[in-house]
Every structure is written in structure tokens, then in C-alpha cells.
């Protein structure tokens, strides 16, 4: 079971990496914010899978922290007048 969870977390990390690396070159800044948001969610999913697979203490609490701050980057972007 842990092998499967590890494989799933690697898969999700690579999926998100492909999306991130392509869109980081994306035309508009707003696309880059989406890439960061995608990585946030993908990172949390990979974190939960890794944490469950290897029973790391505190993995879910780190995911909780990340989930709480997930919107922070985009809020700061829009607040300081970022646009596409």
C-alpha cells in the first residue's frame, strides 16, 4: 500500500510540475498565479500521500498550514494591483 501511495504522490508531483513549468512561461501574469495555485493544491495532495505512506509526524498539520495560506499569494497579487 505504501508503494502505491508513494507512486501516486510522485505522479501528482510530476503532473503539477509539467503544468507549472509550462505555464511559468505563460503569456500573462495571471496564468502564473494559476500555476502557483495549481502547485499549491497539488503540493498538498502529494504531501498528504507522502505523509500517509511514510507516517511522518506532523504531515497533516503542515498540510493544514498550507491549506490556510493557499489563498494568500493570490490575494496579495490582486491587492497590489496585479492584472493579466
Amino acid at each position, binding site marked *: 500500500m505504501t508503494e502505491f501511495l508513494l507512486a501516486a504522490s510522485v505522479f501528482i*508531483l510530476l503532473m503539477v510540475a509539467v503544468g*507549472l*513549468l509550462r505555464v511559468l512561461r505563460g503569456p500573462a*501574469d495571471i496564468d502564473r498565479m494559476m500555476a502557483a495555485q495549481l502547485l499549491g493544491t497539488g503540493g498538498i495532495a502529494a504531501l498528504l500521500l507522502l505523509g500517509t505512506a511514510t507516517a511522518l*509526524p506532523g504531515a497533516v498539520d503542515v498540510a493544514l498550514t498550507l491549506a490556510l*495560506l493557499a489563498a494568500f499569494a493570490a490575494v*496579495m497579487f490582486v491587492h497590489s*494591483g496585479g492584472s493579466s
Partner: protein
Amino acid sequence: MSLALLADAALVLLVLGLAFWINAASRAFPAVVGYVAFGLLLALAWLRLSAGDVAMTEAAVGSGVTGAVLIAASVRLRSAETEAPPPALPLRLLALLLSGLVTAALAGLVLWTTGPAPSLADQAVQHLPGLGMGNAVTGVLIAYRALDTLLEKVVLLLALMGIWSLAKDRYWGGIPGPSRIQPTNGALILLARLLPPIGIVVAVYILWVGATDPGGAFQGGAILAAMWLLVMLAGLRDAPAISRPWVRLCVTVGPAAFIAVGLTGFALPNGFLSYPDSIAKPLIIAVESVLTLSIAVILGLLVAGPPERQP
């Protein structure tokens, strides 16, 4: 090539890919977005190095709050991105050679150090029961190397004073932020009303769980700061004028409480910053909660920036 090593290799490749992207990006904003993603993946790497406390700090402070400051700055400075020419080729090659040498030296250190790594883990764990604690990292932060944590609070205070001193003379004592933010964005207002209560509960939980599992004052304080900033950004509450007494009190109460507790150590035989075993646990909890409040206010004001308006 076990699967775990594959996961680590994928993570390392991603982290390094982002690091090169941060250097190579043509404009500042894409580089900063890359840095936010980099900080998040670093939190994963810290977890793989089984350092839960550091992973949480990296997630909350390293990628969360630092990312916010850098994103705001890169958007504000976007119009002034002068096409300053990068240094001439020979200079760049020299810099490449130098950083290559540094990397080679560190890699050599990592690869060829033989013998058991020096470790203070045994001593750290030995005295934990006396402090009523299970988490060795929090034990080190609050008890064994309490001086580091105290001085680190003072560094935060100095950084805040440095930022406040950047205010124009006529705005001294005023309110950070260029203008009063009007609460217009419905979605942001909903988030700023819904998330902070949950964030406060999670922050207190992380502070409390820090005694036995990864967590503690820094991480809890960073989450509280993020929630406070969210309320300010949504326009529900204006940033406080820095001359307000409660601001000055909150900012200094952390280091002051720590020094006070440290001085009580003199009254007892053990010396400065040592906790008498009998009341160690409540004393530490008291100091940590005051620290969390102080960290939250300082981090929030660090992000808010120097005063730019009349009080």
C-alpha cells in the same frame, strides 16, 4: 532505486528546476511566483528529512509570508523594471566558476564526510521529561537554546524598527499602507470573514501541539499574522497606526516576557533562562503563548510596511 528514492529524486529535480527558473526568468514577477512554488516544495523536502517543525515553518513563513511580501513588491515595482544590462560575459563566467566551486566544495563535504555524524539528540531527549515536553525541537527552542529564540525575537523587533524608520517624517506614527482599503471585493470579504476564526483555532492548536508533535510558537504566530493580514487586505479592518499603545505593547511583550522569565532563573539556583522543573511546563506554555501573540503582530506589521498615511 526504491520508490521512496524516486519520490525524493523527483522532488529534488523540481526544487532545482525552480531554482534555475528563479535565476533565469526574464521578469521579476515570474521569478517570484517560482519562489512561492519553490518554498512549498521545500516544505515537502523538509518533511522527507523528517523535520516536521521546520517543514511547517518553511510552509508558513518561508513560502507563505515571504512570498506575499515579494509578490506585492514585484507587482509594485513592475513599471520600473529598467532593462539594466547584465554584467559583461567574462564577469558572468567568473561568477559561474565561483559558484561552481562553492557547489563542488559543499557536494564534496556532503559526499565524503565519513564516520558518525555529531549529534546532540541524546542529550536533548534526556532532559525532555523534566520540561514536560515530547517534542525535542520545541524543547531546544524554548529551553536548551532559549537565548537563540530570545535574540531572534529581538532581531524581529529590530527589523520592524528598521522598516518603520523608512517612513517619511510627516507620516511618522501614521498608518502603514498607501491608502485605506475599501471592502469592495465580495469574494475576498467572504474569505476574510470565514477563514480567520478557523485560522485562530488552528494556530492555537499548532501552538499547543508543539509541545509533543511538530508545531510551536513560530508556526502559530505566522498563521495568526496571515489571518490578520487577510482581514486588512479585504478592507474589513484598517491597519493600526504604529503610534497606538496596544501595537507598541504587543510588539515588545514577547521579548520582554522572555527576559522576565529568564531573569527569574537568576532567583533560582540554575541561572539565566533556566526553568525550575516543578513549574517548567506552565511557565513554558505561558512564554510560548505570549511569544505567539508577539510574533503574529510583528510579522503582520513587517508585511504591512512603513507608515504612509496620517494616523
